[in-house]
């Protein structure tokens, strides 16, 4: 088990948005989180990540879990470089940047980077500490074909290395998925399609 939640409820400002019930993320799992706009997918990921408090329930985690938030949540004018942003996560910054095709762009300003480059940098930041679990919020938005290939490879490497991932995907990717959680009407259910 990498993460488990019991009686888990997430929301904003004390207002419940999603009831997760009892769920867990195990080693080797790759789970896609599905649901319409405003169904609480991003809130769920942020809460599991520890960025937002859960409204109810308990959670347990074993090992490091990292979070890749949506790139739109960050100011386009951040006074930093792609390398400095990734280095804040600890781990091997150069290797993490190389994994997402940004090996030569560590010194590039965030403000001078494209949406796709910023997206890759956030992916590198999530990968850098070599976590057991990764939570990804629309990691494929803004990415070109090469970027999507690198993302797919990173997700596959994560599972084959004994880790797991839980992701909200913008579109279907050619990556092996072990489960789908559907967020609808304030509940999370398994989608067995």
């Amino acid at each position, binding site marked *: 088990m990498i993460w488990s939640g019991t009686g888990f409820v997430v929301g904003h400002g004390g207002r419940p948005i999603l009831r997760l019930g009892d769920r867990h993320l195990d080693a080797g799992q790759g789970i896609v989180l599905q649901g319409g706009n405003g169904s609480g997918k991003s809130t769920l990921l942020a809460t599991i990540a520890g960025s937002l408090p859960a409204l109810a329930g308990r959670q347990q985690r074993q090992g490091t879990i990292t979070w890749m938030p949506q790139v739109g949540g960050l100011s386009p004018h951040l*006074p930093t470089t792609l390398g400095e942003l990734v280095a804040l996560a600890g781990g091997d910054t150069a290797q993490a940047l190389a994994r997402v095709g940004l090996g030569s762009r560590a010194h590039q300003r965030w403000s001078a980077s494209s949406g796709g480059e910023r997206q890759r940098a956030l992916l590198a930041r999530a990968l850098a500490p070599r976590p057991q679990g990764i939570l990804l919020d629309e990691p494929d938005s803004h990415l070109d074909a090469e970027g999507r290939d690198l993302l797919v490879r990173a997700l596959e490497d994560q599972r084959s290395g004994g880790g797991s991932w839980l992701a909200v995907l913008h579109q279907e990717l050619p990556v092996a998925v072990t489960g789908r959680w559907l967020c609808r009407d304030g509940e999370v259910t398994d989608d067995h399609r």
Partner: protein
Amino acid sequence: MTIAEWWAWFGPGWVALAAASVALALPGTLWWAAGRGLAAAAVPQAALVGAAIGLLLGYSRDQLALPAAVAAAVAGVVVPSAGVAAVLTVGLALPVLLVSGSPHGMNEVTDLTLSRVLGLGWTGAWPSVGLAVIGMLLAWWGRRPLRAAVLDGAWAASAGLHPAWWSRLLGLWGGVAIGAALPAIGLIGVIGFLVLPGLGALRWCRTLGAALVLAPVIALLGVTLALPTAHAADLPPVPVAVILTALAAGVIALAGRRR
């Protein structure tokens, strides 16, 4: 005048101004990086309101300036920009109204707006030196969580870097630096050194870490050029230091755009 005589007269004032400029440039840079640059102008105004209220209540002007600066700075980290702008505007007018019935009070508020750095003795200089040293140690010790909290607080929370705690510490740090520097270098100096060095450094440097090194250098450059200039031209040193710091920051910012 020999160097020894010059130092005897102006040494404490120069040291106080230099140290205060460094103590203010560091939190000022972090506030700019966090998109809270307006707070850098509003918090010293709030400190002035505190000083005026202190005078009205019969305290000395410095006794309430420090707590007012700390309270405003800690709140300024989380208050929306509109609230900060309101504090800035009210802070310009309220101190004058509060002490308008007292000529003594008006003098005190005017004195706080300007500065008396040249009349400062070593006793008045050491608090600024202490704050500058503490600020540099804090910026070094907390370089990772501070930058994470400023650049991406939501992610920093997920990484266990306690951004809320560090943001409050940044507010406290800035508030203490402002409240302590205000009696020594005045409102003009406080706002100048909070705003200008960080602005120039962030335009030149690619990383926030490098900007935290360059900002105090810009502040020291302005101060170093200011005292002999002010002495030679018989001008008040703090406004001269602020103008020279603005020039240095402006040149560096323009050069930074070409990088």
